[in-house]
């Protein structure tokens, strides 16, 4: 009997701790498959964040380091400088990367640090119980914006992909979503390309993945997927914001 589906060997046997309807599991799998398919997984080194993915070191079947909140790009920099031939990646959420870790991500990007960052954006602090994130949408209710995010009071969402794509150091920056199958396929292609360009030594690569948080959004898994499609994508348009290998140098789709 032909095997039509198998779990990727780049994921450990440990069951995910993520909530029902959370898309971290899908994203983990895409990263693991990309590493495996490129043949760089066994010798990859990953850096886990502080946030819902804090236990990522239990799931990816490669050497892993756990970083302090926001510092994953600096930790990955240290690793990559010691192991320049290995695939090095960080897996970070929006509080970790777009708030407390802004300095680290911007400088890793502008140095053209040859690492891949998987940036999971679900517009909220998940692990700590649903507080307002730098990526929380205007009007969005969270435990620290109970009247909805008031932009006159606490500003606007940070658009990480757009911002980092203005720098010279990044080789590839794309925003994808995993709310349906066609988008999951596109997301995997983007992640795979990011790792490929890293291994080719092109520079810093980042894939922003729009993700769900049904628990803290107060939605069912299905409603959460619809909210990504209907509310998040208009605020965070999908596309490739930077690709140094694109011909010619016009971004495909993104950078609206």
């Amino acid at each position, binding site marked *: 009997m032909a095997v039509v589906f198998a779990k990727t060997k780049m994921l450990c046997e440990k069951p995910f701790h993520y909530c029902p309807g959370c898309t971290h599991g899908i994203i983990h799998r895409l990263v693991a498959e990309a590493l495996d398919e490129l043949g760089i997984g066994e010798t*990859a080194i990953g850096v886990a964040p502080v946030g819902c993915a804090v236990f990522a070191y239990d799931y990816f079947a490669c050497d892993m380091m756990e970083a302090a909140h926001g510092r994953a790009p600096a930790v990955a920099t240290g690793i990559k400088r010691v192991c320049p031939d*290995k695939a090095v990646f960080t897996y970070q959420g929006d509080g970790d990367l777009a708030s407390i870790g802004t300095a680290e991500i911007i400088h890793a990007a502008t140095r053209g640090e040859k690492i891949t960052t998987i940036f999971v954006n679900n517009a909220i602090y998940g692990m700590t119980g649903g507080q307002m994130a730098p990526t929380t949408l205007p009007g969005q209710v969270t435990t620290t914006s109970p009247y909805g995010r008031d932009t006159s009071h606490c500003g606007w969402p940070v658009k990480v992909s757009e911002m980092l794509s203005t720098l010279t150091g990044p080789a590839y920056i794309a925003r994808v979503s995993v709310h349906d199958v066609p988008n999951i396929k596109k997301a995997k292609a983007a992640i795979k390309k990011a790792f490929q360009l890293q291994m080719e030594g092109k520079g810093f690569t980042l894939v922003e993945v729009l993700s769900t948080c049904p628990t803290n959004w107060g939605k069912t898994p299905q409603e959460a997927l619809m909210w990504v499609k209907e509310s998040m994508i208009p605020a965070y348009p999908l596309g490739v914001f930077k690709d140094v290998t694109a011909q010619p140098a016009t971004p495909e789709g993104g950078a609206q």
Partner: protein
Amino acid sequence: MKQLMKGNEAIAEAAIQAGCRFFFGYPITPQNQIPEYMSKRLPQVGGCFLQAESEIAAINMVYGAGGAGARVMTSSSSPGISLKQEGISYIVGAEVPCVIVNMVRGGPGLGSIQPAQSDYYQATRGGGHGDYRMCVLAPGSVQEAVDLTQDAFDIADRYRNPVLVLGDGLIGQMMEPVDMDKVADRAPAADLKEKNWAANGHIPTEDSPRAIINSLYIDPQVLENHCKRLQAKYDLIAANECRWQEEMLSDAEIVIVAYGTTSRIARSAMRKCREKGIKVGMLRPITLWPFPDAALRKTLSTAKAYLVLEMSMGQMVDDVRLAINGERPVHFYGRTGGMVPTVAETAAQIEQLAQSIAPDDGTCRTEFEKTVRGAAEKIDAAAEVVGKKLDEAGKKITETFNSPELHKKAQDVGKQASDFAVRTADTVAKGVTELFGAIGKAVESVQKDLKDIEQQQKAESDESEPPKDGGKEGE
């Protein structure tokens, strides 16, 4: 061959010679020559220097590189070291070896850029959050900074724990002759094992499983076990790595405790005081943690007092007091904020202490003491004179009371008084008798007059007596 080198540059070269190939740092005075030197030298030896966007990023890069198994170093000065504390706590928790250099400057806050030792607490108590210790090496010369920096890499690898080299602006900026040939291409210590724990993207084996470099233990019981295991490691460091230097301690009544820059000042002051015959010695901690408690307690056999000299408001003095445990007085002298104590003021402190512990032989040592003592002597003399006079007066009074003349006179007076009293009493009694006699005569006279009057009245009433019956009274 010895060459003249600045402390910062010598430390950087020593690190390279000890196999350090990675350096991450951020500019801050007074340690800038370390990153500058590294940026020039590391590419020449196939290493990597990277100027980080912040001290926070630098220490996290150190964590990554150390976690990947490399010999790695960062350096900074006080405010920058404060920023690194988060990373240091994670590095200790995840058991990653690395070397950190702190060229201490005056604090708190932005403070100054001059040398200080006011980061002692931060260095020896951990500095970041959680239960932890770091081996802290405090060089007192450029040569020692070189030697200790090289040892630091071995100690860090041996225990999988960061090691802090604690200098100050003076150690960093000062030029001294150093023997770099002695430390060239220094091999790691023979006891060090392969880093089979490193997250370097290796294919897992039985000896070297998949690496997880981590400080997160969400189950409190597991974390407690982890902390107990770390503590056992710190106990081992305390037992094996403690270093100190003893100078002129064999007969020392005064023991100076000083490290790094202040130990040099203390040494000069100590020699001056020795020339004056003061029995003073010095114990110089080379490891600030572990602190040389046992060595310090041995000095109790001769020591009468301790003097701790620091470029701070007094931090190591706590550890000295803990070691001495109240058995002797522990004095402190310090300058801070970038001020460096002079040999003269330190020597004055030692002399003052020597006087306070010396037995009193009656000699005056200061003008004030002379004045006070002069005044006291005069008061004593005056009191003696007054006392003598009082004694004399007392004697005279006693003699007078005891003299026979006085007794005779007293008897005469007594007799006279007695005679007088008898005479007076006779006179009074006579007078009273006479008075009563007169009163009696007067009474008799009055009684006689009354009798005469009565008889006269009776005779008059008999001549006009009415008839005994017939008449009606009042008609």
